[in-house]
């Protein structure tokens, strides 16, 4: 326990301005809603999830991570044509998970970021599909080649995006 505390004490907690956080979130939601109109393949990108993961991993606070995930998810639900709460639940869990992991591990390395993004993308899909099956009684796949492609694409995009977002740190 002492070693764990020692490790955790060496993990740096990053802070962001309110405007930086919500500005990027707003931009991500806007792009998520707009890009697929012009580039259909852009729908493979999950920009709101990437924002949730990034701020969760960086701020390393589970409470703020889950609240940010919930807000982003509910906003994403609001601009989608699905019942409000489906993305909200999935991203709440992802925000909580990312910030919990961020509090224990140093995830500044690009490979770690890619790996975590890949894993969280599938975890997000599993939670989303499970919720949809359970509550809406709709058939939603847990895994597919498109999802695999999407997870790889998002992981690669996260490697490029996260360093840019690092520049917003206070």
């Amino acid at each position, binding site marked *: *326990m002492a070693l764990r*505390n020692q490790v955790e004490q060496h993990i740096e907690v990053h802070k962001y301005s309110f405007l930086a956080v919500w500005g990027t979130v707003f931009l991500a939601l806007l792009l998520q809603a707009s890009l697929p109109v012009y580039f259909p393949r852009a729908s493979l990108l999950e920009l709101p999830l990437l924002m949730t993961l990034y701020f969760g991993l960086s701020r390393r606070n*589970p*409470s703020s991570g*889950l*609240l940010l995930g*919930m807000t982003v998810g*509910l906003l994403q639900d609001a601009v989608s044509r699905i*019942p*409000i*709460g*489906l993305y*909200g*639940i999935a991203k*709440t*869990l992802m925000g*909580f998970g990312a910030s*919990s992991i961020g509090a224990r591990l140093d995830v500044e390395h690009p490979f770690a970021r890619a790996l975590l993004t890949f894993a969280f993308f599938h975890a997000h899909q599993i939670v989303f599909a499970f*919720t949809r099956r359970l*509550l*809406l*009684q709709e058939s939603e796949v847990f895994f597919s080649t498109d999802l695999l492609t999407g997870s790889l694409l998002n992981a690669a995009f996260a490697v490029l995006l996260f360093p840019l977002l690092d520049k917003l740190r206070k």
Partner: protein
Amino acid sequence: MLYVVSTKHRSLALLGITLLVQVLLLAVQIRRSEDGRGDVRLIRVWAVAAVSPFQRAGAWAVDNVSGAWDSYIGLQNTHQKNQQLQAENAQLKLRNQELESRAAEGMRLAALLQFQSGHSETQMVAARVIGAGAVGGANRIIYINRGEAHGLRRNLPVITPDGVVGKTLEVFADTAQVLLLSDKESGVGALFADSRTQGVARGQGEPWLLLDYVINGEQVLPGQRIVTSGQDRIFPKDLPVGEVLDTAPGAPFQKIRVRPAARLDRLEEVLVLLSNKEFTPIAAAGKEPAPPAQ
């Protein structure tokens, strides 16, 4: 350390709350079709599913408690209640009998009234039978609640809408004695309604009468109607006397048994004709005579 644990628990609690809120939010929005009975909001389905076991348990408990109460504790006064109910039942039976009796009386009086109003040309007095004397013996008499004060005198015809009953014997101030047709000393001039063959119907001290003075050659069949002939100067003509029960040859006249038209064994109200003036026959065509008295 305490701070870490506290923060961790707080985060988990917050996670649980946010997830619960969102699940409820979804349940409010989602509609589900339940057994084809239309869409029902999922939250309503859940609410019912959550509440109904407690309701069932509550209902079960109430049923059992009330059942136990009714089956055991509540039986304390059952015997007393049973006795009360039996007494009440007996009273109601009595009341029912009384009402039935009144209804029957009402029907009889209505028949008398109808008869009386149908023969308004003849003076008659309605009377109630208040007593009987020597029933089962040779003398068959009844007492009625009308007497001299009501215009009655000896030898007046007493009838019912069904037929001849007898005649007044002794008349007192407010009561009178009536000699029934079935008495041994009673007789009435009679004739067959169809053949008009005459005879005399005599009482025998039995429920049936004997039609005398009909010669052996006269064809008599059971069921033939006998009416008054008016020859005795007491009974008006054509009042129903009875119908032939059976016949046997005799010397010198046939022995014809007649079943009285009036129910002599169950008289309650009668009519006393104040004159023997003839009037329209009482019995309508095809009217069934009374069964033989016991």
